[in-house]
């Protein structure tokens, strides 16, 4: 049986196999990271189906006629800044600044909500113009892909509300802190997916 001798200074240089078990927040974040990657793989499938079907407009409107770059730019800004405020929220959690955390969470929620409102308005506008998901394979793929991201954002907003209630009731418990860490990972991952969305769906869509 190996006896681990903790010598200060040597400990930090020890290989990972001798460093003892990793702290729980590292393990939890790793597990959640695996989930996020599986989520990204699911989005990759939706991206692939969109890329295959993007030309299949069945005589209906193309992306060029439907997409409004101004709306997309505002949506992108909303999501990017909400990612930033989410990071600030995590910093406030780490230094136990409750008021700062609530403010950052409120900003994150407001920006995420603004993104969602813009996206829903865009969808309603498209459906009103007869370009709903049943119009063509292209539009089915578009609504599935972008709608799936929108659903994730909705889930994130609900999660954020629940987390704020947990902090208010339970305080900064280690469990609650780990959940907040997972939420921030989730929120940043959604922003990464949006980067691919606005690049491949919208910007390349208005060019083609």
């Amino acid at each position, binding site marked *: 049986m190996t*006896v*681990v001798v*903790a010598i200060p200074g040597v400990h930090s240089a020890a290989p*990972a196999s001798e*460093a*003892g*078990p*990793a*702290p*729980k*927040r*590292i*393990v939890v*974040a*790793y597990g959640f*990271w*695996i989930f996020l*990657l*599986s989520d*990204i*793989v699911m989005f*990759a*499938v939706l*991206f*692939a189906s969109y*890329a*295959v079907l993007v*030309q*299949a*407009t*069945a*005589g209906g409107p193309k992306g060029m006629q439907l997409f409004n*770059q101004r709306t997309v730019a505002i949506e992108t*800004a909303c999501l*990017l*800044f909400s*990612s*930033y405020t989410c*990071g*600030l929220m995590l*910093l406030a959690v*780490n*230094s*136990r600044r409750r008021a700062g955390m609530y403010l950052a969470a409120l900003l994150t929620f407001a920006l995420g909500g603004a993104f969602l409102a813009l996206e829903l308005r865009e969808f309603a506008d498209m459906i009103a113009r007869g370009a709903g998901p049943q119009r063509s*394979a292209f539009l089915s793929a578009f609504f599935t892909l972008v709608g799936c991201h929108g659903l994730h954002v909705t889930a994130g907003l609900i999660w954020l509300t629940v987390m704020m209630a947990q902090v208010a009731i339970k305080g*900064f*418990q*280690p469990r609650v802190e780990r959940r907040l860490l997972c939420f921030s*990972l989730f929120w*940043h991952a959604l*922003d*990464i997916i949006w*980067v*691919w969305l606005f*690049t*491949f769906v919208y*910007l*390349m869509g*208005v*060019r083609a």
Partner: protein
Amino acid sequence: MTDARYDRAPGDQSIAPDSEERASSGVLVYTIGLVLAVGLTATSFWAANTSLLWNPGVPLGLAVLAIAQMGVHLVFFLHITTGPESTNNVLALAFGVLIVFLVVVGSLVIMANLNGMMPPAELMNLHMRH
């Protein structure tokens, strides 16, 4: 005697609150990330609309900008580092990227191949492609 190190599950006890300077360096990291991401996004929107660039090259440029922005998000927002704590995360990420690449490129290649072997649309009375 050394067992005392493992008396409680690691990470069960809350980490000490961050000091003021650690918190402000954290803000700096997020702010650098935000500035870089805004710059890359603005470049993407500019590149998609300008007529100054060579047109066929623009989609490739947009893809490169998206990859760069993904890198910015991973490093500055998700804090993927080269440290020992993120070795597993980086390995998982590499595997995820491999799967994503296989799914997307595989689908595109197979579907393009199928499309190429398909009789002309009018013949099949399929209006898949306009």
